[in-house]
């Protein structure tokens, strides 16, 4: 495996003035590192990779990396990605979204992208909060938690991104945390190679906001929490629903063969040409 320093020179844009915008201790950098490591290992040409993001802290990721990069509107990354993939199917189209981005404002696009099965590898970095706007509750913030927009405790119930996407028909669904970096690498690799819509939920930390709301004092505390609260898919299958409460189930949650939109479209197109 290449040294990180070498990857930096290959994949980070030298013409872009750093530092990046992320807070110290943020998990997005860990994910970005993993993504670049895996892309390098698979050996995609940089010209063939398109990285699309929405709005929020995660939305800034593409600007730092030397691919074809597109920073879209809030929640809509998957719609742009769909257009790119269908117009140029040989491109490796990847989306990076945040939890508010992907499942609140972009929820409709997410379920339909999963259902439609256009080959897009999508990554939702879930830090349980709207970070960029100052720590408001998101659809993954646990019930009862105080945030800047739920000063008396979150009145809503959170939802499970992976289960929603699995039910919508995604070809590949998985979850990791940024603590579990080796698992994260494996899941990113599987998602990138999947023929069809793939989603990996990446549980991450926002030390600036959600750490404060969840009474976890530092990035280290937050990553310890990820370590201690995670349970593999295999173990989760063997324990009761009650025991699973509050646990982060990690691993591959769904992996199935579904014909992609483009394969089907090409078949029809070929027939019509004859």
């Amino acid at each position: 495996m290449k040294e990180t320093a070498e990857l930096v020179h290959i994949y980070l844009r030298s013409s872009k003035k750093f530092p990046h915008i992320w807070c110290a201790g943020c998990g997005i950098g860990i994910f970005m590192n993993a993504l670049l490591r895996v892309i390098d290992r698979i050996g995609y040409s940089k010209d063939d990779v398109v990285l699309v993001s929405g709005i929020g802290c995660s939305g800034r990721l593409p600007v730092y990396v030397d691919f074809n990069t597109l920073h879209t509107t809030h929640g809509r990354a998957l719609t742009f990605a769909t257009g790119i993939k269908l117009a140029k199917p040989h491109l490796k189209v990847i989306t990076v979204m945040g939890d508010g981005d992907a499942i609140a404002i972009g929820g409709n696009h997410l379920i339909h992208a999963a259902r439609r099965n256009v080959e897009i590898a999508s990554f939702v970095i879930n830090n349980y909060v709207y970070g960029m706007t100052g720590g408001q509750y998101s659809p993954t913030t646990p019930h009862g938690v105080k945030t800047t927009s739920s000063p008396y405790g979150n009145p809503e119930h959170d939802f499970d991104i992976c289960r929603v996407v699995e039910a919508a028909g995604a070809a590949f669904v998985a979850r990791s945390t940024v603590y579990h970096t080796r698992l994260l690498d494996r899941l990113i690799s599987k998602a990138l190679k999947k023929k069809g819509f793939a989603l990996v939920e990446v549980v991450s930390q926002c030390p600036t906001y959600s750490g404060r709301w969840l009474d976890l004092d530092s990035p280290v505390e937050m990553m310890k929490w990820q370590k201690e609260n995670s349970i593999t898919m295999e173990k989760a299958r063997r324990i009761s629903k009650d025991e699973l409460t509050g646990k982060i189930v990690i691993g591959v949650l769904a992996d199935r063969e579904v014909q992609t939109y483009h394969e089907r479209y090409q078949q029809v197109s070929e027939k019509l040409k004859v």
Partner: protein
Amino acid sequence: MRKLTQEQVLLQGNEACVKGALMAGCRFFAGYPITPATEVMEIMAQELPKAGGVFIQMEDEIASLGAVIGASLAGAKSMTATSGPGFSLMQEHIGFACMAEVPCVIVDVMRAGPSTGLPTQPSQADVMQARWGTHGDHPIIALAPASVYEFLELTIQAFNLSERYRTPVIILVDEVIAHLREGIILPALGDIEIEERPQPKVPPEWYLPYGDPGSGVPPMPPFGEGYRYHVTGLYHDVRGYPTTRIDEVEPLIRRLFSKISKDFERLQWFDSFHTDDATITVISYGCVARAAFQAVKEAREQGLKVGFVKLKILWPFMRRTITKILANSQKVLVPEMNIGQISREVKRVNKGECEVATLNKVDGTPITPPEILKMLEEMQP
């Protein structure tokens, strides 16, 4: 009834739009069903797979324009078609396409609003929305066909302008023209000029995706061909990277405007009839121009000195053309199927030398020639 010759075809407005789009090289359509624009989508669904293009029905109009912009970045000439409620949803991405300079064509078949309104009676009430619907200062181009042939012709031109200036182009058509059937002669492919977006002539390492090459329009290579660049809706520097520097922010927005405004002279598209000696001139567009033309013909038969102007471009507003008309007439009449949107612009550029009268009908039925004729008679000095 006139018999159609071999070269003639009987087409509905929406069908003609698709023909024009395919002639212009459109190879990607994303849309969401909405009357009275749905035929554009249905015919695209039928024709694009045969033409080697891609059709997709998205989950809403926001997604439709998102997919269109994505496909355009990948190099495909792309379009969508909708009506008022969908057009409202698209405003977010119209702004993105303006800011990121992504060519795309948006057909808005106007029906009476606001909100769900009068589905699906004709209207011309989205004129100002086309201009100012998305937030922030931005330039926009909007075209207004008044016949089935013009719908075809202006769809081709919409793609040309969109590619030439790297900007979204809106076709503001009303339900009457979209659903009208007329016999038209299709232009031969060799006779129409098709424009393509400018391509870089430098290697990737020298390429500036948002630099000004002099024309105000930076070259735009498709994603995936070696020019790896960044596209964002944020204010960006010449390399496409986000910026808040005052010496980069204002030059960007100024360039977005000037790349189109420097060409105002080329963007005066109108038809006129009997304007030389007219004391009263009717300024119209879309289906109302048809009624206005008939009314002016009848008024002339009565010996009234009236003239006719039909606007084919609504935005940017043709100030040069309109001020000449205002200078040469004593009065102008602007009949419109809204409370007064283009008339407002006419009044804005009027320097006081001309009386501007309006005829506004907003009951969901078209303005008729007798209604305009009556008004012209009343306006006689």
